[in-house]
């Protein structure tokens, strides 16, 4: 044991010295960082008013004319930080000034260089900065980054291109919609929706070249952007061979809300595929064209529950005339239509309103409420059975139940 003792002492002393040095290094590092932050805070109080004055000004003086003459590298970084913070809540002229200032400070050039970093998070961070800077010179390098091996770097590049806008930055985003193996279609679609009307022309131009799944996403994006420029394409898609495309097109037309497309959607209510009919009914509710009331009443007799539900909901959204049509449907000879009419009148709280009118002093309102409640009560007697009938998926079973329900004696005996 004795010969081991000096070695043990050396090891313990060495470890102790290492830990002491490490503690000192950490303390120095912390002190330096805090000093740096305090220095930055002081510099920021000097630089920030100058940057804000530049952003709020209407003159063409460049940012450097507002800043102190001797600008260190650290100051430039602070100015860039202030500009990017202001980029979050400004638009218009102030936003354009931020781009011009970032170009003048060479921040754009530095960020483009950082896109080639070996560390993916640095590439992603640089892409995000370039999106906020919105410089057109960054479009090419960002398009390249969209081919990056790291998904996060790719999506940040896509987001940055969405922020920069302009046809050259939107085109690769539209292409990305068609490559689901490398891109999340939902995230790319969200970026394009955020771009807004500027994305419409590119989507329309590329539509026929896109694969099936991308065309569906593109129709969703066009609908949600709500530009009238896409109406022609959406109408055209109502005649597409694929029912998914026809259904999405109908949904998109409802989102755009051009009442001139009501005849096309009314025609789509007769589509052989039920998802198209259901989406057309929903869209007609959004359009608010009273001409749709008759066709929607007919659609409430559809053999598919979703079509009936959307048609009923659409009638409810068509105001008093639509609600009157729903009330009228209580007397329909179709049990499924009656069933749906009750459900929609309940959903729209119309039944509640009439029940409240039963205590009204106005004789006309009171009489109208009585007539309404009579109709509802008559349907409710049928409801227990029609509920089962309406929920049935087998055509034959439903037809049989329909025949039984048409027999008045079963109701009279209850």
């Amino acid at each position: 044991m004795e010969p081991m003792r000096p070695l043990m002492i050396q090891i313990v002393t060495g470890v102790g010295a290492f830990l002491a040095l490490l503690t000192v290094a950490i303390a120095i590092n912390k002190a330096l960082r805090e000093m740096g932050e305090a220095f930055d805070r002081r510099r920021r109080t000097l630089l920030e008013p100058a940057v804000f004055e530049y952003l709020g000004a209407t003159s063409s003086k460049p940012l450097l004319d507002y800043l102190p003459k001797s600008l260190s590298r650290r100051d430039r970084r602070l100015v860039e930080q202030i500009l990017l913070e202001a980029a979050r809540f400004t638009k218009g002229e102030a936003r354009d000034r931020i781009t011009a200032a970032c170009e003048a400070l060479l921040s754009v050039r530095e960020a483009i260089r950082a896109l080639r970093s070996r560390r993916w998070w640095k590439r992603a961070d640089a892409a995000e900065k370039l999106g906020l800077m919105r410089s057109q010179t960054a479009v090419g390098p960002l398009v390249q980054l969209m081919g990056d091996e790291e998904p996060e770097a790719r999506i940040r590049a896509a987001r940055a291109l969405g922020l920069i806008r302009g046809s050259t930055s939107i085109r690769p985003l539209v292409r990305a919609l068609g490559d689901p193996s490398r891109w999340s279609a939902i995230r790319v679609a969200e970026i394009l929706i955020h771009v807004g009307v500027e994305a419409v022309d590119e989507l329309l131009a590329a539509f026929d070249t896109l694969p099936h799944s991308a065309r569906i996403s593109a129709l969703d994006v066009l609908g949600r952007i709500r530009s009238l420029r896409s109406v022609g394409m959406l109408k055209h898609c109502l005649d597409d061979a694929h029912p998914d495309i026809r259904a999405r097109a109908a949904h998109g037309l409802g989102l755009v809300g051009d009442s001139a497309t009501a005849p096309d959607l009314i025609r789509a209510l007769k589509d052989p595929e039920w998802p198209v009919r259901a989406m057309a009914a929903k869209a007609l509710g959004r359009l608010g064209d009273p001409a749709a009331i008759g066709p929607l009443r007919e659609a409430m007799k559809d053999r598919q529950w979703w079509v009936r539900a959307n048609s009923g909901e659409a009638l409810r959204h068509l105001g008093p005339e639509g609600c009157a049509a729903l009330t009228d449907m209580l007397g329909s000879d179709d049990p499924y239509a009656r069933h749906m009419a009750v459900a929609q009148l309940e959903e729209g709280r119309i039944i509640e309103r009439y029940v409240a009118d039963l205590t009204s002093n106005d004789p006309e309102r009171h009489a109208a409420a009585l007539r309404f409640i009579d109709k509802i009560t008559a349907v409710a007697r049928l409801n227990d059975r029609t509920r089962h009938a309406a929920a049935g998926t087998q055509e034959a079973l439903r037809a049989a139940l329909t025949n039984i329900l048409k027999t008045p004696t079963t109701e009279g005996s209850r």
Partner: protein
Amino acid sequence: MTEPSAILIADSDPVLRRFVGALLSHNGYQAHEAPDAETAIRLATALKPRLVVLDLMLPGRDGFEVINSLKADAATARIPVMVLSVKDREEDVVKALNLGAEDYVGKPFSTQELLARIRKILARSG
């Protein structure tokens, strides 16, 4: 006491507060800042500014409650409120206007548009 052109900016984002404050100062207004709802109500009562520029998402009570409080107090009821918020859903805009806000500007905003709207409100309120 009312300063001739005092405007209160109530927003939880300090950079935005300073930015709007600087913008208003350069255009001849006296800007005051409030980081939360309680401070906004307290400063509005004490300073009687000519306008409150209000965010809807404030720490503590939200912007709608601030409008309610200001409009419920006779001392502050006549101070016009302009909402400056990232919340741009139709129901939020309608709710704020129904509660008594004079105007609604969404974020991100144009500085020139913001100033034009402020000038218009101040001209209207005399």
